[in-house]
């Protein structure tokens, strides 16, 4: 809040406002009003707001996605938690209706009834059970409604990407507008973000060239960086493997859920290739900072087309490669 003091100067405010307009930056109000309200029908929200629905849909259409180990939907089962997880190497517990990455607990190893978080801390079984119990009571869900906890297998991040992430699995966010991939970034967890991959929690965002999957620019806490703060790896050399497969997966996500302005979260699994983590009907704006580019010019290009939703996946990707590469 205090960093905003120069904003008290009306001239500087006006200048910045104009600069941002000319860069084509999408703001929160415009995103909500022009894109989410217009292209995302309210009736489709439950598909993405409830990750269990997303998962069912993804399985139905045979999209690659982490296996569902179990679903806990009542407090009694929370005490039976160890049945689901007793012999698993690593797993992930998430609230079905969580938002903004809230309530996701990633366990990378278990040993003698203790569970290791991605940042190396050990948790007792009781602590994991309390987490599940909190999920069920709706602590992390939108509007505090009661919720269910999903337990998923942990993916093995692709070898090519493993060195870029200090903690946790690096995931890739693609914005898909009316079926066409528009912008992409990779989110890397680090010490500062406590293993979380959300940019506002301090994770690193790496903008990716939509044509090649190669890094363009990297930011942390809205500031440009060159190297990973924990590992010192040069971020500009980052290249996502199996990029075209990934774009295809992102396009099919639009087809299964029907949301016009969609954020797709994906990971590259060592064996399975690109896999769907979750969908987001209100994708954040920081992807613009990571890419050092505004979304608006790209969105407008697509808005000028009649019914791009009906194109084939190949044509959509072709369009993206032709217009949005850098």
């Amino acid at each position, binding site marked *: *809040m205090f*960093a905003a003091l120069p904003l008290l100067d009306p001239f500087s*405010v006006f200048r910045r406002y104009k600069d*941002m307009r000319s860069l084509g*930056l999408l703001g929160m109000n415009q995103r909500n009003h022009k894109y989410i309200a217009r292209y995302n029908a309210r009736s489709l929200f439950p598909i993405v707001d409830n990750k269990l629905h997303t998962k069912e849909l993804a399985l139905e259409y045979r999209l690659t996605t982490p296996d569902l180990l179990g679903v806990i939907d009542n407090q009694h089962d929370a005490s039976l938690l160890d049945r689901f997880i007793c012999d698993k190497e690593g797993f992930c517990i998430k609230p079905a209706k969580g938002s903004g990455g809230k309530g996701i607990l990633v366990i990378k190893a278990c040993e003698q009834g203790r569970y290791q978080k991605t940042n190396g801390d050990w948790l007792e079984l009781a602590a994991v059970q309390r987490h599940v119990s909190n999920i069920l*009571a709706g602590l992390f869900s939108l509007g505090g409604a009661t919720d269910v906890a999903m337990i998923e297998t942990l993916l093995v991040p692709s070898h090519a990407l493993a060195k870029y992430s200090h903690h946790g699995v690096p995931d890739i966010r693609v914005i898909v507008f009316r079926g066409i991939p528009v912008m992409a970034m990779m989110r890397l967890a680090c010490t500062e973000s406590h293993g979380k991959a959300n940019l506002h929690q301090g994770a690193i965002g790496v903008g990716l060239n939509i044509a090649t999957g190669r890094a363009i620019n990297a930011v942390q806490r809205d*500031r440009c960086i060159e190297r990973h703060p924990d590992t010192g790896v040069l971020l500009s050399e980052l290249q996502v493997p199996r990029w075209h497969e990934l774009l295809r997966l992102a396009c099919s996500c639009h087809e299964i859920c029907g949301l016009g302005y969609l954020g797709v979260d994906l990971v590259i699994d060592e064996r399975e290739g690109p896999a769907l983590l979750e969908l987001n009907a209100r994708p954040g704006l920081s992807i613009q900072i990571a890419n050092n580019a505004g979304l608006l010019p790209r969105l407008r290009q697509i808005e000028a087309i009649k019914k791009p939703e009906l194109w084939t996946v190949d044509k959509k990707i072709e369009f993206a490669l032709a217009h949005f590469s850098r």
Partner: protein
Amino acid sequence: MNHSKTPFVILIFLLVFAGLALSWHRHITYNVPWLPGEQQQVWSVEARIEFVGENTPAIVSLAVPETQTGFERISEYTASPGYGLEFVERGGVRRAEWSVRLAQGKQVLYYRAEYAAKKMLQVKQASAQIVESKLLRGSGPHITVARTLLESAKKKSADEFTLTRELIREFNNQIEGVFLLEQHASREAWLVALLQQVGVASRRVSVLELEDGRRRSQLLDYLQVFSGDDYVLFDPFTGERNAESPVLMWEYHSQPALDVLGGRNSRLSFSVIEQKMPVGDLVVRQREMQSNLLDFSIHTLPLSEQALFKGILLIPIGVLVVCLLRILIGIRTAGTFMPVLIAISFIQTSLVTGLVGFVLIVGTGLLIRGYLSQLNLLLVARISAVIISVIILIALLAVLSYQLGLSEGLKISFFPMIILSWTIERMSILWEEEGGQEVLAQVGGSLFVAVITYALMMNEYVQHLTFNFLGLQLVIMAIVLILGTYTGYRLFELQRFYAMIKK
């Protein structure tokens, strides 16, 4: 899904037009000024008499305050369907008397009067008669105690008023002696008796504290002490000459304030509301008795409801502030409209007390919540535990501040406790997930919004406009709708994307 903008623009136009037209109509027809300037403060007081009839004829007699020092009565009005009403004067004392042939079941009578507050107005009153009190006759330990109190007060005083002040102070200091005295008669009775003993004319009067928005308030016993033609009112417990809020003497002829014949369980309660009226209007005070569809004023409602609405009509202002600050500036708050609720409680508690109380309660609540999280409780039980802790905390703070002599602290109980408990729970989770900085940002943001909202709600002009011109609510509605279509950047986004602009 492309919507045409025309219906929206028409709607906005209609809302603004209707709102302004209604306000204009009210301004022209009822002479309500746009601004609260050059105005007379007027206290509308409504006495509500309740009793249960005993199937017999009933006579109800109510003391009616006349124009007195500081207050000029400008109008009076009664509502009592089925009753005969007469203002009777006996021995120079005017009272309202209602009568009915058969009073059956619960009866409610209203008397409403309006008093213009006039600082310069001095009304002489005949001094109280000095009669020797029966209380001081005879002997006994209590007589000795009373005389000792009187003697020491007398030594420290110079005139009638300082004597009264000192006497009350003695009563507050000598707790044991006063305990003995109060077994025989009330404190007020003793004070009057002792003052009369040394020739100071005084009497008990029933006064009404004038505080805007008061509902169901009761008369208080005060002392009226004379010095010649002059008099001063004393609170028999604090000894203060001037209470925080002005007081109106309701009954000052040593008679009962309310007298009901043929009824039981009688109750007298008051609602008070402060109004601003143009000075010119006071001369010819025409009430808007006949309700008119276009008269969108709440001044036709009973006073107690008006007092309620005065607060309610300010809420849209708070909501508008939240809209502005979130959409145009992008301030993050804990809970969308929580700041408005906090601001409303600030109005009750006063700003500083409210801020200190809020920080204390939320801070301590977070500590308690930190402990509760170790107990591995279910969410609903945990929040219930936080609610109970918050209530205990509020009670403790109230008692503590009262013991320390800070009567301000008592107002802490006006906080919305359930909302506070949820805030504590959310903040606690936020702390675990995003760290203390985010908690500070959100709590700070909420308080910032709350303070701005509070400042606006307390503003004389805002209060005047919202209370007198209901049509302006439509204009606020239109502004909120327009804000809902604002697609420009938020102020904080200018800061957030600054790294990109620089390049």
